[in-house]
């Protein structure tokens, strides 16, 4: 019923969606077209699918469950260093996998700090390798992201609501029931879904911490098909299954989420009168300390290993760093354009938006190997793929960061629309005026966060660059891998620390730029 209005927003949104579809499904199609012969999925493949789903679900559940009290604690408290802590907590997520895994093992491994401490009191070293290790690692990676996304939800509750609750003498339990739980009901399914999707494609973490071939994920099965058998049809079908699993998860999560209608507020900074009790202070302090310790100790281990090597970094590092920054900048630009186009279309045209939103989330679930191969197959007949290595990397990184951008932007944009939409319509604000005067200023915080994530992720990601790599044009993560492959582990640790520092700096610059009212 009713025509879909053909507006500029609608067209931009559809164009962005089609671009994402081309990159995720189009590349799989390219691989399928090239494949010869049929496929058969063996029992190994089904076992891989089962394991992938199971570890992703558990990891996401635990991450989200732990993130809620931490986010609540951060939302309620103000203390010196809070902003720095929030930024630093984003670090595990943006590190290259191999660096983060080694850092995690430096703390929790068989000869890590915890094992050494246990050894002093006479216990055996902890056995981290197994399903629990995989989940621990995933929680380490994703808890910060979950916390930030849920924190954004908390900060979206207008200050007036808390003021009203304080006037009505509401207890913390009342506030939880009336204000916080509805907000969580809106935010949690989406957060769970994003983390679930990230964990489905986690390959190196699952394998290294899983302890053995039982920890085979679908991504590893794709590697097997591609490298050992050159069975492109099997690789493509597995990639499609991965996309299907994720599409289903995305659809379910987005249906479950109940958007919250908060009503307009006046942007006063939030004061929480309910949070002044001692018991709550202690609990919040405990949660924040635990989270900070868990997330920051492996980072400290990485810093400790890398600091001595910073003095004699190979000279190629600086060119590689500059290249990484350039690619990151490009990724940020592409992410923001795609994300804004899709967000505005989703919010203004809800019926069309219901189908556009899941498409935006598909990219994390796409296999990097299949995307790279598909892109290679598409580009090879047209031009030299190596010449396009850096722009292609930027594009793929941008599409991979898109889900997080959407997760941050869509709720905020929906809120802007519900609060000010009617006012804007009544004033006849349309087009650029609406965008520049209403939407963008109010979206500054989630835009900053999205840009920060996109930039930092792009810096730390190898992405598809290995298939297109130009020997002379290494980015920083590729340089890191090359150093490790050449036995130079110490120098690699130094480069890892540099990468960590640069990624955090990029994250901080964009994130700080988006913070209005110094609220987060």
């Amino acid at each position, binding site marked *: 019923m009713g025509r879909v209005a053909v507006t500029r927003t609608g067209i931009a949104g559809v164009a962005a969606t089609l671009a994402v579809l081309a990159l995720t499904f189009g590349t799989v199609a390219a691989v399928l077209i090239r494949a010869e012969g049929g496929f058969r999925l063996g029992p190994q493949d089904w076992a891989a699918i089962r394991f992938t789903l199971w570890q992703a679900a558990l990891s996401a559940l635990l991450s989200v469950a732990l993130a809620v009290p931490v986010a609540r604690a951060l939302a309620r408290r103000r203390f010196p260093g809070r902003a720095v802590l929030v930024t630093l907590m984003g670090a595990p997520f943006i590190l290259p996998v191999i660096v983060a895994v*080694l850092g995690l093992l430096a703390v929790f*491994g*068989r000869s890590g700090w915890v094992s050494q401490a246990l050894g002093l009191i006479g216990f055996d070293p902890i056995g981290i390798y197994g399903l629990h290790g995989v989940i621990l690692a995933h929680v380490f990676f994703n808890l910060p992201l979950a916390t930030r996304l849920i924190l954004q939800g908390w900060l979206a509750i207008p200050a007036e609501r808390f003021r009203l609750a304080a006037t009505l003498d509401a207890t913390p339990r009342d506030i939880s029931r009336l204000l916080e739980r509805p907000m969580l009901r809106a935010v949690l399914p989406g957060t769970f879904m994003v983390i679930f999707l990230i964990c489905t494609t986690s390959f190196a973490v699952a394998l290294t911490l*899983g302890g*053995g071939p039982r920890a085979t994920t679908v991504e590893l099965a794709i590697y097997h098909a591609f490298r050992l058998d050159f069975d492109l049809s099997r690789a493509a079908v597995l990639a499609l299954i991965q996309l299907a699993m994720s599409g289903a998860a995305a659809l379910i999560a987005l249906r479950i989420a109940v958007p919250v209608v908060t009503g307009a507020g006046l942007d006063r900074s939030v004061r929480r009168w309910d949070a002044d009790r001692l018991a709550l202070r202690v609990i919040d302090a405990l949660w924040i300390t635990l989270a900070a310790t868990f997330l920051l100790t492996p980072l400290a281990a990485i810093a400790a290993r890398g600091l001595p090597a910073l003095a004699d970094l190979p000279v190629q590092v600086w060119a590689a760093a500059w290249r990484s920054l350039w690619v990151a900048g490009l990724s940020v630009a592409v992410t923001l354009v795609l994300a804004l186009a899709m967000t505005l279309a989703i919010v203004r045209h809800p019926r069309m938006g219901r189908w556009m939103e899941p498409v935006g989330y598909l990219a994390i679930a796409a296999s990097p190997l299949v995307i790279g191969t598909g892109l290679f197959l598409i580009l090879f007949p047209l031009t030299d793929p190596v010449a396009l290595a850096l722009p292609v990397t930027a594009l793929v990184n941008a599409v991979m960061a898109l889900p997080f951008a959407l997760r941050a932007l869509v709720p905020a944009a929906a809120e802007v629309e519900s609060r000010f939409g009617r006012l804007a319509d009544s004033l006849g604000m349309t087009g650029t005026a609406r965008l520049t005067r209403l939407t963008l200023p109010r979206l500054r915080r989630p835009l900053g966060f999205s840009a920060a994530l996109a930039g930092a992720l792009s810096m730390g990601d190898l992405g598809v660059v*290995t*298939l297109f790599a130009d*020997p002379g044009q290494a980015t920083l993560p590729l340089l890191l891998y090359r150093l490790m492959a050449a036995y*130079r582990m110490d120098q690699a640790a130094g480069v890892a620390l540099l990468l960590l520092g640069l990624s955090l700096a990029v994250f901080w610059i964009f994130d700080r730029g988006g913070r209005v009212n110094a609220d987060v």
Partner: protein
Amino acid sequence: MFHRRAIIAALAALPLALPAAAQEKPVLTVYTYDSFVSEWGPGPAIETAFEAICACDLQFVAAGDGAALLARLRLEGTRTKADVVLGLDTNLTHAAAETGLFGLHGLGDVKFDMPVEWEDDMFVPYDWSYFAFVGTRGADLPTDFRALGASDAKILIQDPRSSTPGLGLLLWIKAAYGDEAQAIWEGLADNIVTVTKGWSEAYGMFLEGEADMVLSYTTSPAYHVIAEDDDTKVAVPFSEGHYLQVEVAASIASSDRIELANDFLRFMVTDAFQSVIPTTNWMYPAVTPTGGLPEGFDSLIVPDTALLFGADEADHARDVALDEWLTALGR
């Protein structure tokens, strides 16, 4: 008016001027794996050495590791830009020969310094090493697979589906034990700390102390001795013998520069190329350079027996071994 005409005339003349200025040297494109072309690998030195004698422009194209290299070639097919492919190993030569892309090398007169006779007329070896477990000097480490299975020693290995050394270990046990390979793996199940995606993760974890031994090469300790003056890392000799990894190169039959490609292959077995290999690729050169091997290589263990599947047997052995491995490790 005058200025504009002058500028247009100058621009029009430019295309005529450029070809004269850009003296085109023939370009030889060599596809190889990533660690070969890195600044710390053999690539740069070899590029300089070859360009000095060939009056050409040598360009490397990197593609992951050996298996990824072959996969890329299959994707490109006959339209490949490659003239030479360098970096496949003996586990891949059969599949590579079946693509029909490669030409014969015609270097039958070369004497190689390898533990096995080289009879392949399509692929030329350029370096080789033995797979071995690397541990710490002085530790009490088992010296064969059965002893390893029975002991408490903790080992780090790589997944054969994503890593070349991982595949090497698989074939090593298969070559040494044949039908008993699965039983050997079942014995090793409790020794394995974890299986990593690639060599770097496993070796990095070993250096951090996560396990007693890691699967690597007999030549790995040479790096620590030569570059770090550290002789605490040793390869453990196994009585069954050690599996060989031989890395090879070949020319693409359909290449436009087939003569230059064959020149490169011949250059590959000369001193100029081979002397670069030991301290950049950390493998034994296929033809020992006249200056001999660097000092650090003297302390390396030399196994009595070298195990190697022939090109045609390797594929089948690999499939059987992989199934046994997955079954034994309780998939």
